[in-house]
């Protein structure tokens, strides 16, 4: 019976294997069907989540949790999978390197993310992390002929390896002191012993560093801008929404739930990291010329906002994080669809290449404005309510200084988002030829925009859903 609950993962691996064989057997010319099959695979897995809804148990030797939290993130990761597949269909078709393996690696990466989110054992979470990382290293270097892609891969790999070594060292210390790597056991490990021991505090630092690297919190973020700029654009899109969301899910499972005993220590640590990430992310993004690098810093800042929720770690702030992740995923997917389009059409990655876009692709430009307005946090968008909930949870738990820093950073973020909007609307286009949006990218743009507005205006159903699935009561 337990296998029913891990059906989505099994489906993903099965479809991936089929595709692996297909891409090897079918010659390059007729590989058009692969993206469609990938998307179908993700959809099937999403449907497969249904039987597990409403269940609450821990299976496979208390390794895998079957709870609302896991299902919520499974659905989000599969949605990410679909969005990225759609977004990269056009782009990948144009690349010389064989297209098939790209989707295989993508599916394995999403599997890894699901494992990270639904495991209650540090070992399983670490393995999930490694699976996502392995796939990401290869994806980063996918465009072999582009030196930037190679460089992105090597940098991401080396930093990733070092970070996972550090994480491992921390895990070993944690295992040493508590004798177990299972989060469920850790939760009922009595609190006083835990917060007293110096070993655990050091282990905590290594853990925070390891996961901090994954979600690119400042000062562990330095790989992100280079990897984002170097990697092929659809991969950058995936980096900005996939692994980060998984990292956050894991962080929620490990710290607020698992190491609740150490709350006093890591909450201050996360608060500092959040403050630094927001400020550095926004300030550095101000002067960026390349839009992918700007989006890297923007997403670092967004993760900084979310980490406030982690620092506060009250029931309401965890819900706020989940809402923010939901909103963030759709906003970035939509934004990157447009960036992929312009990169694919060779219009360029510089912000000034976006000049006069509003005349060349009016609907797409309007959608971009919706996304930027959401990222800034103007009402009627999911971005506003996301920040609003984080804001309320911070103010409620007395983190007033973080709330005000959030407000100030939103004002600073106007600076660089405005740069792109100004280019699109206030500059004259170099060549006024209209830019046609292909259906697949159009679909991603539309879902992103609709989701941003819907999640924003009708936030009540989403809030109630998150309330149900929230792991922390």
């Amino acid at each position, binding site marked *: 019976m337990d296998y029913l609950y891990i059906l989505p993962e099994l489906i993903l691996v099965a479809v991936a294997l089929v595709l692996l064989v297909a891409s090897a057997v079918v010659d390059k010319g007729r590989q058009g069907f692969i993206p469609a099959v990938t998307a179908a695979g993700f959809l099937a897995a999403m449907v497969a989540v249904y039987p597990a809804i409403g269940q609450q148990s821990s299976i496979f030797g208390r390794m895998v949790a079957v709870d609302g939290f896991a299902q919520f993130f499974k659905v989000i990761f599969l949605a990410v999978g679909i969005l990225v597949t759609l977004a990269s269909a056009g782009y990948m078709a144009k690349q010389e390197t064989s297209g098939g393996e790209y989707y295989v690696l993508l599916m394995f990466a999403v599997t890894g993310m699901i494992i990270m989110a639904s495991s209650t054992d540090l070992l399983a979470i670490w393995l999930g992390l490694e699976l996502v990382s392995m796939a990401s290293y290869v994806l980063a270097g996918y465009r072999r002929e582009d030196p930037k892609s190679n460089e992105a891969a090597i940098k991401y790999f080396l930093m990733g390896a070092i970070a996972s070594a550090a994480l491992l060292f921390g895990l070993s210390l944690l295992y040493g002191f508590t004798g177990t790597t299972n989060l469920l056991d850790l939760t009922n490990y009595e609190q006083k012993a835990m917060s007293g021991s110096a070993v655990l505090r*050091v282990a905590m630092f290594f853990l925070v560093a390891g996961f901090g690297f994954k979600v690119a919190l400042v000062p562990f973020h330095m790989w992100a801008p280079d990897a984002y700029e170097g990697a092929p654009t659809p991969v950058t899109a995936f980096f900005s929404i996939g692994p980060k969301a998984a990292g956050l899910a894991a962080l929620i499972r490990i710290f607020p739930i698992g190491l609740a005993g150490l709350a006093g220590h890591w909450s201050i640590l996360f608060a500092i990291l959040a403050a630094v990430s927001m400020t550095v992310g926004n*300030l550095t993004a101000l002067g960026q010329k390349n839009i992918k690098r700007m989006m890297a810093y923007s997403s670092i800042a967004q993760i900084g906002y979310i980490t406030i929720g982690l620092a506060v770690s009250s029931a309401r702030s965890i819900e706020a994080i989940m809402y923010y992740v939901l909103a963030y995923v759709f906003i970035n997917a939509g934004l990157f669809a447009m960036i992929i389009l312009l990169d694919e059409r060779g219009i360029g990655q510089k912000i000034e290449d976006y000049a006069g876009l509003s005349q060349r692709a009016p609907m797409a430009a309007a959608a971009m404005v919706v996304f930027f307005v959401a990222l800034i946090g103007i009402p009627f968008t999911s971005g506003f309510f996301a920040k609003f909930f984080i804001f309320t949870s911070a103010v409620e738990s007395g983190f007033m200084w973080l709330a005000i820093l959030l407000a100030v950073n939103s004002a600073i973020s106007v600076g660089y988002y405005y740069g792109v909007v100004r280019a699109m609307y206030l500059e004259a286009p170099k060549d006024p030829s209209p830019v046609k949006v292909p259906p697949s990218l159009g679909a991603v743009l539309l879902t992103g925009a609709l989701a941003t507005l819907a999640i924003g205006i009708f936030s009540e159903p989403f809030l109630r859903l998150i309330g149900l699935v929230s792991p922390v009561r």
Partner: protein
Amino acid sequence: MMLPYAWLIAALPLLAALAIMFFGRRFKNGGDFIGIAAIAVSFVLSLLVFGQLAGGAESYRFTFTWLNLGGVPVQNGIAVDNLTAVMLVVVTLVSMLVQIYSRGYMHGDVRYPRYYATLSFFTFSMLALVLADNFLLLYIGWELVGLSSYLLIGHWFENPGPRYASMKAFITTRIGDVGLFIGIIVLFLTTGAFGFPEVAAGVAAGKISGTLLTVAAVLVFSGAVGKSAQFPLHVWLPDAMEGPTPVSALIHAATMVAAGVYLVARAYGVFAESTSALAVVAWIGTITAVMAALIATLATDLKKVLAYSTISQLGYMMVGLGVGGYTAGVFHLTTHAFFKALLFLGSGSVIHALHTQEMHEMGGLVKKMPVTAWTFIIGTAALAGIPPFAGFWSKDEILLSAYHYNPVIFGLTLFAAFLTAYYMTRAVVLTFFGKPRDHHKHEHAHESPANMTGPLVVLAVLAVVAGLPGSPLMGNWFGKFIHFGEHEAEAVPAVMVMAIASALLGILVGYLVYGTKLVDRRKAIAVTRPVYSFLKHKMYFDELYAYTVIGGTQALSAVAGWVDKNIVDGLVNAVGWLGAQLGNISGWFDLAAVDGLVNGVAAVVSGAGRRLRRWQTGYVQSYALTFFATVIIGVIIYELIGG
């Protein structure tokens, strides 16, 4: 019973003004007859009202709740009593005559309909002011009158003269109005109402007394100082002569400038309670009277002479009211309105004929323009205070009251009376008698048409007759009709004799100096060099304001030049100067300081952004170094501090 319909008297000119403004162009000569017809009807109505009140009907008052501010009712309405009746007659009569006169004078003017519309609008505002039963409606009329005078002075706004004069007039009177504004507020807050009777009752009941009452009274009086061009806010009236002469006659001689005096009379209840306030009124009146008279003696422009003469006579009226001669002041107001209007219209007729206002280009016009000349002489006689004429009776009353009040004031006013006679004789002699100094102009000078000389004759008759009601001949009827309180200054024959003597002496000296060759003027000027030049330059008031203005402006403009180039050309106006200087400083401050602050913050933020970008060196090992450095240092700090 005509009284309830008194508001019609004011409404008619307003309707006429609107009619002319919208449909004026359609009619043959700009719809001026609408204006004249309306004012004629109003005049008749005023006479009826005056008749009823003279016949003993008691005053009529109609009030309604204009506004209910959450339980605080604000009353508004109109009232007609003896004082109003007199003013109604004076205003409507002079306005009618001026409008008739203007048909000739303003004939062929480019904005003829607009002139008549504004004139009717002025009459409406003046009548509204007079009919008001409370300070609020009076203030509204007060400002509307200021507006119409601004429009009329600036009638020929193509050339620069009227442009500056109109603005100067409005702003200077506005300074006075601010004083009145605060006075009204103080009175309302203490006595709880705007209505004149209520305020007077409140003051009498001691709701406001002592220094606060004096301050309130002086504040109200400051409004009058502004409007009636008393010292020190008198600078605008001489410049107001830039406007058309009929305007000067109506507004700057008879009605508007008299509004200040009317205000003090109407609010006499407030003034009477505070002796020091009355003293202020009296002294300001005296200073203005003497000062203006002195300047008038040397003015070369005919209209300027009359302007300064008006300021001097207004000073007289203020003295009348100040010394307790309530009736005297009001009586002089009415008589002055007639003969000063006559003099202005007369000078208008002369200017119309000769197209110049400079007296040394005139001379010997008595033969050319007999009607204008003789009516002008009658006016002069009335003004100088020769017995049978109106001016004598009213000025005599004032001198009488001044005599009882304070000998110094009496002396000065007597000296002013002498000066009045002197400069009027000089004006008459230079204009109408002696050899014509400018033959070219003299040749085609001709008598003005009927519609101009007609009003002159009517006013001349009034100048003679108007004095009688106040004279003992008609049993001092005017005193009974308009009085405040009971006391009646008993006649002192000596005062009357001295008054007549000073007037005759003035005429004699004036004739001697200008009429005959006996006095060598050049030598006389040489002897009185300092006094002469002092007076010639109108006591340097304009220069005083101008010097402090231009000097101050040039100094500041060097500093704030680029902010406001065209203010540097030196506004001849105390307020304009003060405002301009402060404006420049705050303009500069606004741009540099406050804006700078905001842009500064933006610069800091983007600077920080640039430096942080440098931190991303591109060497993956420096990334790893930062990674581990954070962990190690974090652990050490945490352990050390965390403990």
